[in-house]
């Protein structure tokens, strides 16, 4: 075991896989010499060579589209979109091709690749650097979409993503890149894609979140604990496929559910979770499942983020309201 933060855990997963599987390449803007603007790929070029870890021209559609070409011919590209907001130019390649090539060719070609994207707000960044695009990807058939919330999960989920024969969008909660440290096994292991994790058992209410919001919910749990409220916290981990079984079982137990996501509300991730809860636990519901999400606004520039980002206090407030419903 070794103490790692998320950045190190992600780097470690790539390092292990690069070592093990020569078909893997890692590329994107500034990922080579620089080691990425967040240093997530630091050291990988020196260790694995410039043919395997390299800088690409500045063009996201190009990065994604060329990776498909590599993937269908026996390679395994791990590509990086430098920030969430810069994945949009690659949407057509992701939606129209990467997600569909297996289906289109009836499995003759398939697309084993990972698209890494640092995502989410709360880091005082410029515009387009704080987006939560997971619903766009979750709504796109043919993709898998995962989000870790701890170094341990980050490593295991990334290894699972790399070993998956299908394309995986791997969203990295950049806000907690260096904020959370944890003992992580040095060897290879997988966290299965499609499985949520029950972080804590609790009787009064189920809270579902993922990514950087997990930590905020945990802070809120401290606040409500004082009031005697016991929270069952679920880390979704896999945006698609969704682990309905875990969610259903949880809400059937507590009868109350709060979804916390920073993504915009309308047509957002929380809506899907509320639908799943309706489908899996309707008869157990003692209060309407509630979503606490980003507003349907552009995420503000740093000085305004305090309003947009969801605080532990606000989570606690919603928990209390729901428990007292």
């Amino acid at each position, binding site marked *: 075991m070794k103490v790692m933060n998320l950045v190190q855990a992600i780097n470690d997963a790539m390092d292990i896989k690069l070592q093990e599987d020569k078909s893997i*390449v890692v590329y994107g803007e500034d990922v080579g010499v620089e080691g990425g603007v967040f240093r997530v790929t630091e050291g990988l070029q020196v260790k694995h060579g410039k043919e395997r870890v390299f800088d690409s021209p500045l063009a996201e559609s190009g990065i994604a589209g*060329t990776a498909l070409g590599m993937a269908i011919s026996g390679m395994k590209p791990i590509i990086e979109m430098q920030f969430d907001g810069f994945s949009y130019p690659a949407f057509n390649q992701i939606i129209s091709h990467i997600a569909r090539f297996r289906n289109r060719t*009836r*499995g003759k070609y398939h697309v084993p690749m990972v698209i890494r994207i640092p995502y989410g707000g709360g880091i005082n960044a410029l515009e387009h650097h704080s987006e939560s695009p997971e619903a766009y990807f979750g709504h796109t058939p043919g993709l898998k979409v995962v989000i870790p919330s701890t170094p341990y999960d980050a490593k295991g989920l990334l290894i699972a993503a790399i070993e998956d024969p299908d394309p995986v969008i791997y969203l990295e909660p950049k806000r907690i890149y260096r904020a959370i440290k944890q003992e992580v096994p040095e060897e290879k292991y997988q966290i299965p894609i499609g499985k949520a994790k029950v972080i804590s058992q609790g009787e009064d209410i189920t809270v579902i979140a993922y990514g950087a919001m997990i930590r905020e919910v945990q802070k809120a749990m401290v606040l409500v604990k004082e009031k005697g409220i016991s929270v069952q916290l679920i880390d979704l981990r896999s945006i698609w496929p969704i682990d*309905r079984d875990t969610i259903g079982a949880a809400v059937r137990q507590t009868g109350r559910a709060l979804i916390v996501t920073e993504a915009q509300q309308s047509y957002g991730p929380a809506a899907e979770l509320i639908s799943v809860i309706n489908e899996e636990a309707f008869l157990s519901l003692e209060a309407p499942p509630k979503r606490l999400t980003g507003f349907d606004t552009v995420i503000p520039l740093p000085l305004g983020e305090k309003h947009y980002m969801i605080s532990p206090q606000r989570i606690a407030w919603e928990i209390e309201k729901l428990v007292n419903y």
Partner: protein
Amino acid sequence: MFDIKTLESYQAIDNKLYQVMDAEGKLVIPKWKSSLDNEQIVQAYRDLLFVRTADMMAVAYQRQGRMFTYPPNLGQEAIHIAAGLVMQEKDWLVPAFRELGAWLAKGVKLSEVFLYFRGHEDGSRFQEANRVLPVAVPISSQLLHASGLGYALNYQGEDAAVFAFVGDGGTSEGDFHEALNFASVWDAPVVFVIQNNQFAISVPLAMQTRSKNLAVKGIAYGMESIMVDGNDIFAMHDVFSFARDYAVTNKRPILIEAVTYRAGAHTTSDDPTKYRTSEEEEEWAKKDPVLRLQKWLTRKKLWDVSTEEELIASYRKKIDAEFEIAEHYPEYNIDDVFGYLYEEMPDELKRQKNDYMNFINSSGGVK
């Protein structure tokens, strides 16, 4: 033959078009010699006839309501047959959607093409063809796949090339730009082929770009490029042979603009009389690639036109037989919808399929 010297004297910036024979099938390059022998040339002519027949029959099937939208190849066939003659087993073919002759050369079955345009994904499974991608509908998006395949060839140490097709309209898309740029920066052995057939559906070339010609766009990527008469199969064959060799030997991409004309409609849903004149169509009909080779062959006494009718009749039978296969393909079932999204079907898809099957079962098969 076209070699590196020829390239020097056919610079796109000077608007030079490489042509071997004129519309009458007469050589315009004195003493030109083909690298194909007479037998191969005759076979190329047969292939031209075959794809033209298949293409026209596809349009007819569509008219009969036996196929959905289909994009005719009429007038552009020489490009595809020439590419077919040059592409090797190890080479990748990355089509747009109007390269029937090239697909067949790569081993795609005509029945598969028909099946695809009858509306079944199984038509893109390419049972016996390797290294050919399916039809790419979103214009120019496939070119990036070609650049990635080119990187992979280098990475895997294979001496092979990628042949990637796009239309004149396609040169306007951002992906065209990114693909050529990536290929160049990566030294990827890709032969990019612009089929400049003068139109993008109804939009004429003059509204797509103001560049002198399309080949000149290679300059923006530090890429060699050649403008060639796309209705001249000899010129096309020369240029493709050179380009493949160049790409594989130098590990460099190269750009070809094949100047041609879309003699038919954009697709079977299109009516070109809305946006172009019959004079223009007739002008181009005179430059038809099939007729042109026929004239050359006849002059050389390598071909007897009186045998053509019979030959075409035999092709028609073959083609009908292929169509039958497509038309009698097994019923599209629910697993065709759900079965190919992922290597292993996720529970969520199983659940959705199951829901649907519950309905089907309770409705007695009504959908």
